[in-house]
């Protein structure tokens, strides 16, 4: 395991915490969204169950980084969650778009109003992150045939692309009614490009810029959390009927993903 610590924890312990955090956000998002549709399909419980398993496994691994059994557990939970996410994507695509009136001809409509198409893939990403983390905790320097930092930078590139796309769709649906809604399309896009760059052709200049962009993305995520809370308050009845607005308003945890994805990039830089 890499010996450098940050705030008393090793980088992969941090990744385990980030795995737990992102999974928790995505799991709650799935819970809220599927509750809103009254769990019409039994499969809608799947992300909640596998997600919970991954959260527990990741937390255990963060607290006890050494026991191989816990590493193994995290890896299994990761694969399971990743598979659930893929199946979920199929469901969201099929039931959320293809079988709806008008089907794929109304793609734009259902991207905005059908089941959020990229959300299950977020869960897949969290699962893969769990697998990478387990590998790192077990002392591996490479994963999927890639050096650890490169793997993390590629990972960040992909998940940022997904998060930007999903935020883009939903902020478009909200007609960018607040200029701050353009934020996820700006800084994180640059961070995404820098991340790809770092994976393919790293240099100290890019690395410095990447670090700055990641911190800015992280900050934007925190601001986003505040803005989403404000967005909830701008729904009919505001915070007074917070529970209904939790179901109708902006997804409360979503900006947290930008925090998580940026933090992974920072861990990657740390590992260089």
């Amino acid at each position, binding site marked *: 395991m890499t010996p450098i610590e940050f705030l008393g924890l090793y980088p992969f312990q941090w990744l385990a915490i980030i795995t737990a955090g992102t999974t928790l956000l995505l799991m709650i998002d799935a819970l809220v969204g599927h509750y809103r549709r009254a769990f019409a399909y039994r499969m809608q419980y799947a992300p909640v169950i596998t997600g919970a398993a991954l959260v527990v496994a990741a937390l255990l691994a963060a607290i006890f980084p050494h026991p191989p059994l816990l590493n193994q557990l995290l890896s299994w939970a990761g694969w399971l969650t990743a598979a659930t996410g893929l199946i979920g994507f199929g469901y969201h695509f099929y039931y959320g778009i293809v079988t709806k009136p*008008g089907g794929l001809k*109304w793609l734009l409509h259902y991207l*905005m109003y059908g089941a959020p198409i990229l959300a299950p893939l977020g869960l897949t990403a969290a699962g893969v992150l769990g697998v990478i983390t387990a590998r790192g905790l077990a002392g591996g320097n490479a994963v999927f045939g890639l050096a650890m930092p490169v793997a993390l930078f590629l990972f960040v590139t992909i998940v940022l692309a997904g998060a930007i796309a999903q935020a883009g769709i939903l902020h478009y649906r*909200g*007609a960018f009614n607040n200029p701050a809604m353009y934020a996820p399309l700006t800084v994180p896009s640059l961070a995404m490009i820098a991340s790809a760059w770092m994976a393919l052709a790293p240099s100290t200049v890019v690395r410095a810029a990447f670090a700055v962009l990641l911190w800015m993305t992280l900050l934007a995520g925190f601001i986003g959390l505040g803005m989403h809370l404000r*967005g909830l308050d701008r*729904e009919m009845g505001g915070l007074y009927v917070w529970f209904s607005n939790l179901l109708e308003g902006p997804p409360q945890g979503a900006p947290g993903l930008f925090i998580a994805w940026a933090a992974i990039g920072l861990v990657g830089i740390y590992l260089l």
Partner: protein
Amino acid sequence: MTQQDQIMAGWSLSAPGIHGGRVPMRDWSREEVDVCVVGAGASGGVVGAKLAEAGFSVVILDAGPHWDPMSDFISDEHASTKLFWTDERITGGNDPVELGSNNSGRGVGGSTVHYSMVALRAHPHHFRRRTLEGSIEDADHRDWPLAFEDLEPYYEEVEEELQIAGPTFYPWGKPRRRRYPQREHELNASANVLVRGCAKLGIPVAPSPIATLSAPHEDRPPCVYRGFCNFGCTTNAKSSILVTYIPRAIRAGAEIRGNAMVARITHDSHGRATGVLHFRKGSDELFQQRAKSVIVAGYAIESPRLLLNSAGSLFPEGLANSSGRVGKYFMVQSSEQVYAKFTERINQYKAPPPGGAITEHFNRTMPGVGFVGGYTIEVIGPHPVDFVAKMATGRGLWGEGLRREMLDYNCFSGLGMVGAVMSNVNNEVKLHETEQDQYGLPVSHVIFSYHDNDKRLIKHAREKMTEILQAAGGEDVWSDHRMAHLFGTCRMGLDPDDSVVNVDCRAHDVPNLFICDGSVFPNSTGVNPSLTIQALAARTADRICDMARRGEL
């Protein structure tokens, strides 16, 4: 204090506002204003607000109250009849128009307080119907004296203010230069039926542009899909004139005087309007509001009635009526509705009545169908009291049979058309010879008969709607006839002998009198009218500003 002082002090300085409070505003009752607007509806609100912002002193009078959405609007079909103009009117002709809930509102916001919010632009060809369709026996439709392009910037302006929620790509009409300000709404179950049916039949169908928020805007929350839009929106998501242009007008220093029924427009010996005489609630005295210009915006029945009631020695046939065209060429839009029963629950009342989908595929003159003009097909969502009446009139059900069918209310889904109607000189609004209203003013006598072309168009639409509902899996299809929207009684035109107002909505006969509501349409279009009425009002405001600048008023 005179009675006038008491009434003015109590009501003019303020109007009921949010949470039973009062909205402070200017009081122009004792002064001569630059502009007095009669009617605070779709057109009056727009023209009044824009002129106030341009620096004119403006008072807008409305016969009905200044509503407070939170306390005045009740989510109850029956209690909401107060939103409609239900004063006595006499109807006649071969196809008498049912007046009231379906075509005219009363109170600040006018009909937009309870309208269905479908916000469509007319198509370029609607402005040139006479040229394109040629002359037709027994019909007298005219080209508009202006083109679509003249209104295009005003459509954009009004859509922006109302924050119309519409699709990214709208397939009909002239391609848009700018995206709708907000995104389309989610489809409700009735709209799903339309989309499903059209998809099966290969008929293009698109999200419907509507005037209710799909995202927060300023201090207004997005729509929560309660579905009580036709009874006054209590959440302010609906972009009625009451919550859009009226607050703008007040901020700019206009006075909105509710409960003020205008009885007559006064004029001087030179034939210029000098103001209006109006009744205030609680008094049978006539109050004078002096004004340098008067704008009539009372909609296609009340506007001509007011002009006819304002006859004087200089204008024996009614104000601005030297052409004899005031009240003539009255038009409606055909709005036949077709319903079918489904095996699944539809809950047709949920979400705004337009549901979120529309097809304008038939909104053009089609070859080989035997009629000119076109129509749109829209989603509708009547509430139970309205629906039970339709079941009685449209299906002839009564008693136990009606009760049993109503148990399936939640499984019905319906479509409605908005169809162009031919203009005809025999269709008119005139003063009734004997009947008077509560103010002692002669009531309107509204005469209407369909043209054969209209009947063929309605038949075509009924067949298409039936096909769509059946393709979507509906059974027991039945239809109910209705008419909606009013036009044409003060038509605009270039020829003073054949029209009441010119292209700027200025009366040919009275230079400081304008009429800019639905009554100026020289022909009916195949789309719901409010956006065109509002765009026209926005243009009229700009034209008045130009004229004032040039000293031509």
